[in-house]
């Protein structure tokens, strides 16, 4: 096996990424490498969309009625269940330690990780939602409300979930605990999310609901990274 | 011949969109199925040829 280090040095891009981009790129790359990470939430989403008609009732009128709720519950569960792995593998292989020892602001790194998580769960879920809507016979009026509410709601779910993940990462087994911690915080998002779709379906204005979802997102963006950083330091020091 | 005119043929008794869409999708699937392994073959051959050249150089 021959190597051409000299050649390689010449062509290699040696730009150093900042902490935000470095973390974001790495997390996306990790998911890309594992491939299955990318389709994970989608599969889950599709699964729910398949299981539900199979298990409950294939009747189209009935399905149309429950569609908004089912899509939102599925999105919520998909996010919740993917949360546990957010910091766990980093914890186990020692990269989390390295992260905490980095002089870079933890706030940015954490935000990048959450963004990567959302891009790999919330965003595809949002983009897939219309397909799900069709499979569950959601009337066309509700589609825009569905997509918009998911777009505003799922980042909040990722942010809040990450707090739970950070708090439980040091434990031998966090899988359940995280659900318990995070679920109560998810419920307001669920309620406003489904309410907005119902409103869209009945022709009522949805602006108010979207404003509330947006406000929750803004709050989350400011507060959650602080909470996550603090939680991570505590978990690792234990 | 079940069609009198070409326009009728295209229209398919009002179901033209569905019929032609189906056949179009079938065509796409068939073509992709043929093209994909052919491109793969080209890629494998160039890759392996490069590997062989490299090995020859090395030895």
């Amino acid at each position, binding site marked *: 096996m021959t190597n051409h280090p000299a050649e390689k040095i010449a062509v290699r891009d040696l730009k150093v990424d900042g902490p935000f981009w470095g973390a974001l790129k790495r997390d996306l790359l990790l998911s890309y490498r594992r491939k299955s990470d990318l389709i994970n939430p989608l599969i889950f989403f599709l699964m729910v969309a398949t299981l539900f008609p199979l298990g409950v009732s294939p009747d189209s009128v009935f399905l149309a009625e429950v569609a908004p709720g089912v899509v939102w519950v599925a999105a919520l569960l998909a996010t919740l269940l993917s949360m546990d792995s957010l910091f766990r593998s980093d914890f186990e292989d020692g990269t989390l330690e390295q992260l905490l020892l980095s002089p870079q602001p933890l706030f940015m790194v954490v935000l990048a990780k959450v963004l990567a998580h959302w891009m790999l769960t919330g965003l595809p879920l949002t983009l897939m939602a219309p397909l799900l809507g069709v499979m569950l016979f959601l009337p066309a009026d509700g589609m825009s409300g569905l997509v918009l509410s998911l777009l505003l709601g799922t980042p909040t779910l990722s942010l809040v979930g990450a707090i739970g993940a950070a708090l439980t990462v040091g434990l031998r087994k966090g899988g359940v605990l995280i659900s318990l911690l995070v679920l109560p915080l998810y419920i307001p998002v669920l309620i406003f999310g489904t309410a907005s779709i119902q409103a869209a379906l009945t022709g009522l204005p949805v602006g108010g609901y979207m404003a509330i979802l947006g406000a929750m997102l803004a709050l989350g963006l400011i507060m959650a990274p602080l909470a996550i950083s603090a939680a991570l330091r505590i978990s690792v020091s234990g | 011949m079940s069609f009198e005119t070409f326009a009728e043929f295209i229209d398919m008794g009002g179901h033209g969109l*569905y019929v032609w869409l189906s056949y179009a999708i*079938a065509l796409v699937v068939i073509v992709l199925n043929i093209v994909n392994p*052919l491109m793969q073959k080209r890629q494998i051959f160039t890759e392996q040829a490069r590997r062989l050249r490299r090995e020859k150089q090395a030895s």
Partner: protein
Amino acid sequence: MAEKKWMPRWFYQLASPRWCYQITGKLLPIFAVAALILLVGGTAWALIYAPADYQQGNSFRIIYIHVPSAILAQSCYMMMAVAGAIGLIWKMKVADMVAKACAPIGASIAILALATGAIWGKPTWGAWWVWDARLTSMLILLFLYLGVIALNSAIESEQTAAQATAVLALVGLVNIPIIKYSVDWWNTLHQPATFTLTERPAMAMEMWLPLLVMVIGFYCFFAVVMMLRLRNEIIQRERRSSWVRELISG
């Protein structure tokens, strides 16, 4: 290996990737021509000469794509599972490669069956999708395919990947009849069948013959793609053997 002594000669030969590569090289053009003629001719027959259905009119012509693809999607799975089993039990490399080549073809054909079915459903049932027994079991078949593909691509070592997917395909094979059975039951229980696929009047000969042509055409097409993929796979895996080296450098 010593254990293979009792096997017949052809089995030996089949097990040799090189022989397989040569034989498929000869068969490929034959099947390619057959597929081309059958598919083009069948399509012309189907679209132009076959009579319209008295109930559904011309949307019925979708059947000439839909049914062959539905049939092919199912038999492709069988082939994959059987090839996988042979690879698993007799450690036959070529069988592994056949199984691997089957999965993407089967999945794409299953998608075709689903898509044409869905398109057909719109004019006939007024909906793109209903949770009917057959559609559901087809969807599940697609999931099985996707599972096999995903597993195969997730495992890096070729040998391990082949063995693992063979196990999965076999487990899926056991499940296919169960799925079919369960879905049939489920449908008759939940939902009064508004429309059944089987209760249509027996098909007229002039409708049935082009269908037959298309079905055979689809099988030939499958054989062509199968061989193309198999040959790639053989080259890829045997890249270090002397005959492949010659083939590539020559």
